[in-house]
């Protein structure tokens, strides 16, 4: 099965919902894209009398990172088929028993939202393969081929969105206020885009979400919070909400600022990231690396930091540890290699979910 087009991603999700009605719930996201596409997510889990903790996994955010959608669709298909038939799952040298699969869907709800940015994916798959943003035409002056079309959705969340104020001028976070930046334009305001509002809505609808995973490419890493600066667990007042630290964020190894994360949260995040890497490694020996998002490069407005930050802004929401998977070593692997990557990452994700116990 080669790469899925945008119609097929959605029909794959809906067909899984139809085929496994006892184990799934189809969720229609409320806001269509600028080109009118409606997205779906799939809640996977055994029915339960009371709500269960939830792992929310999203993909297809950056248009050119096609395989992220396939990773999540195949993961859902594997888990559902294995649960129904009472089998385990084998990904190369990583294996999970039938008991582990059924236990997972008994204990957790897994929510798979494989295609956040359908317009961008369609444009990348049919016109410009290296396109990254969505297809919001607001700043393009009527030219659909302009670089000024679109917003980088993974800079559009409400986390240190005003990076010019929040970061040290020397920090150079990978984000831009220039609408014609081809890659990292953050948009005019937080959640200016329907695609990010859909993710926000899903988090709002799933208050028992405790783990959030955004699937991207590439670099063979798994990133955990935070992405704006080094982590520290000593000074709770040194945090993203404290304007006293505006202009000081984003420099590595300095004493002026590090982002606060409770030690128990960082320890939990590291264990989960290591579990993911262990699952990947068993498949064919690849060594994905766990690290904070800041070690990739300083960022603002990303989904994983937004998901985690919600619990600080409003403790009633509960904590959601945020992760970003960066699979592979290129944006468009040939399909034969992509299949191998899907096995790698799906094994890692199952191992990750098991480690949430």
């Amino acid at each position, binding site marked *: 099965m080669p790469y*899925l*087009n945008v119609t097929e991603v959605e029909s794959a999700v809906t067909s899984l919902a139809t085929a496994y009605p006892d184990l799934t719930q189809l969720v229609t996201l409320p806001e269509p894209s600028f080109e009118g596409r409606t997205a779906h997510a799939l809640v996977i889990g055994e029915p339960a009398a009371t709500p269960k903790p939830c792992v929310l996994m999203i993909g297809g955010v950056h248009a050119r990172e096609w395989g992220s959608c396939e990773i999540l669709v*195949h*993961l859902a298909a*594997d888990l559902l088929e294995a649960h129904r038939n009472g*089998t385990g799952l084998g990904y190369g040298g990583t294996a999970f028993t039938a008991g582990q699969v059924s236990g997972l869907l008994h204990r957790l709800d897994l929510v798979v939202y494989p295609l956040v940015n359908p317009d961008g994916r369609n444009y990348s798959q049919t016109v410009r393969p290296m396109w990254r943003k969505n297809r919001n035409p607001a700043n393009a002056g009527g030219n659909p081929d302009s670089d000024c079309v679109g917003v980088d959705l993974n800079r559009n969340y409400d986390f240190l969105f005003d990076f010019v104020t929040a970061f040290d001028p020397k920090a150079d976070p990978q984000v831009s206020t220039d609408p014609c930046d081809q890659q990292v334009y953050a948009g005019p305001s937080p959640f200016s885009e329907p695609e990010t509002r859909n993710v926000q809505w899903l988090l709002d609808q799933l208050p028992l979400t405790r783990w959030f995973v955004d699937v991207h490419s590439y*670099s063979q890493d798994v990133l955990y919070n935070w992405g704006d600066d080094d982590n520290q667990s000593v000074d709770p007042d040194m945090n993203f909400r404290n304007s006293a630290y505006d202009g000081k964020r984003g420099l590595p190894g300095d004493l002026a600022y590090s982002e606060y994360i409770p030690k128990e949260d960082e320890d939990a995040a590291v264990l989960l990231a290591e579990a993911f890497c262990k699952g990947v490694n068993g498949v064919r020996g690849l060594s994905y690396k766990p690290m904070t998002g800041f070690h*990739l490069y300083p960022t603002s407005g990303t989904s994983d930091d937004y998901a985690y930050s919600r619990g600080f802004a409003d403790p009633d929401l509960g904590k959601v540890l945020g992760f970003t998977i960066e699979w592979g070593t290129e944006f468009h692997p040939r399909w034969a290699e992509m299949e191998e990557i899907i*096995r790698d990452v*799906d094994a890692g994700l199952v191992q990750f979910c098991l480690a949430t116990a």
Partner: protein
Amino acid sequence: MSAVPHASPDDDILRLHVTSEDPEALRALLRENRPDVGGRPHVEADGRIGIDVYTTADRIPDLEREGVTVTRTGNASEAGRAAQAEVGSGDRFAPDDAVPHGLATKLAG
């Protein structure tokens, strides 16, 4: 110093590997040019720091500077077009009995 053999004749986005012995030289390049990058900087086998950069041929001179080596490693647009040929057409899941199957081996009990 450049190891780029020739310029691309069109607007294709090329995949380049940019390396330097001096991490600050690489940081300065990324800060000043803000190129499209793939992944993160890695320490290479020879101890140099390297990162993938994506740009058009006419922008390569902007990357070239003392202490930095730019090597063309591929044509990302060409690779993307090859991948576009591997995108499904129609809707393989339209039939009522068409359901996706994952890639895992289903293991007995």
